[in-house]
């Protein structure tokens, strides 16, 4: 039985799907009902780089019904240490084509809606509107802030995952229940740079955790990172789960908590 309400109305499984997902259907509290929830769910992932590639691949493997993926640009050599949906033979060609091809190779039943563009103020409402849940894998805070605003406006959960060097951070936001991104990060951090040191195994670690958070929120199992930030340092394998606070004057979400 689910431990909290599932996010979506499930869709019934066929025999092939029962066979494919048998091992995770055995997971305590998940069952066929949980798998049906995943099949009925849609998730927006932006972008599909080091983080988003792994999130998308794990959710495709887990049997999510629909992925909306957004990622601009062409595959570069420097993508290939971590962006696991990009391949050497696709160098110089659109990343989003590589993303869609790899996801469909893994799961031909998956519906993929792909956009060869990154999240912006102009397209955020449209992209967020196509999904039940968002996983924020964007490298720039203006993209993250645009997604957060739309997630709050459209009342959709958003999983925030991030990495730097051998460290990573992740939290799960539910508008009106937890701090939103603007509560946690009220300004664009001036020290954050577009290019930064990281291993693919670090982005992959937090990408897998983000996919697990999405599965938990969608199917209603476990305890998602609501009002908690998990910070990890893979240099010494320190994992810490800490409470985070709402900003009662948050310009994005404080109206949801007004008495």
């Amino acid at each position: 039985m689910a431990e909290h309400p599932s996010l979506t109305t499930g869709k019934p499984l066929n025999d092939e799907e029962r066979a494919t997902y048998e091992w995770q259907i055995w997971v305590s509290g998940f069952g066929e009902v949980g798998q049906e929830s995943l099949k009925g769910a849609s998730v927006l992932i932006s972008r599909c780089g080091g983080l988003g590639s792994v999130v998308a691949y794990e959710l495709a493997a887990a049997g999510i019904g629909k992925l909306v993926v957004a990622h601009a640009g062409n595959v570069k050599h420097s993508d290939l240490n971590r962006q696991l949906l990009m391949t050497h033979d696709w160098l110089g060609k659109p990343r989003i084509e590589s993303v869609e091809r790899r996801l469909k190779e893994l799961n031909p039943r998956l519906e993929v809606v792909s956009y060869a563009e990154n999240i912006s103020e102009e397209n955020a409402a449209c992209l967020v509107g196509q999904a039940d849940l968002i996983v924020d894998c964007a490298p720039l805070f203006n993209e993250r802030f645009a997604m957060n605003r739309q997630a709050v406006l459209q009342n959709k959960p958003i999983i925030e995952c991030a990495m730097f060097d051998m460290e990573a951070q992740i939290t799960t936001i539910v508008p009106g229940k937890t701090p939103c991104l603007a509560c946690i990060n009220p300004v664009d951090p001036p020290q954050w740079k577009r290019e930064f040191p990281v291993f693919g195994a670090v982005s992959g670690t937090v990408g897998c955790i983000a996919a697990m958070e999405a599965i938990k929120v969608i199917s209603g199992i476990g305890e998602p990172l609501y009002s908690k930030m998990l910070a990890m340092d893979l240099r010494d394998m320190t994992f810490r789960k800490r409470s985070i606070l709402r900003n009662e004057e948050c310009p994005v979400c404080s109206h949801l908590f007004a008495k």
Partner: protein
Amino acid sequence: MKLTVEYEAQVKKAAGIASEDVELDGPCTVQSLIVHVAEKHGDPLKPILIDSEGNLQKSILLFLGDRQIHWDDAPELSEHDVLTILSPISGG
């Protein structure tokens, strides 16, 4: 008063260390502890932590033990408290 300060993400890189023990005369506030480590380390850590008016930069997060605290209403520190200073990171 013996305290521990931990640094994470770019703050750790700027400090050049992951954590340090600090001994200050008590009673001690979170604000005075942060100003102390900012002055002790200087550049490049100090401008990441403290703005030109001596307040915490708005992008920096603080945790006392496992709980986030805000600069403006931070509690008084106790012996052996662990303060974590963290800068937001993103993805890609």
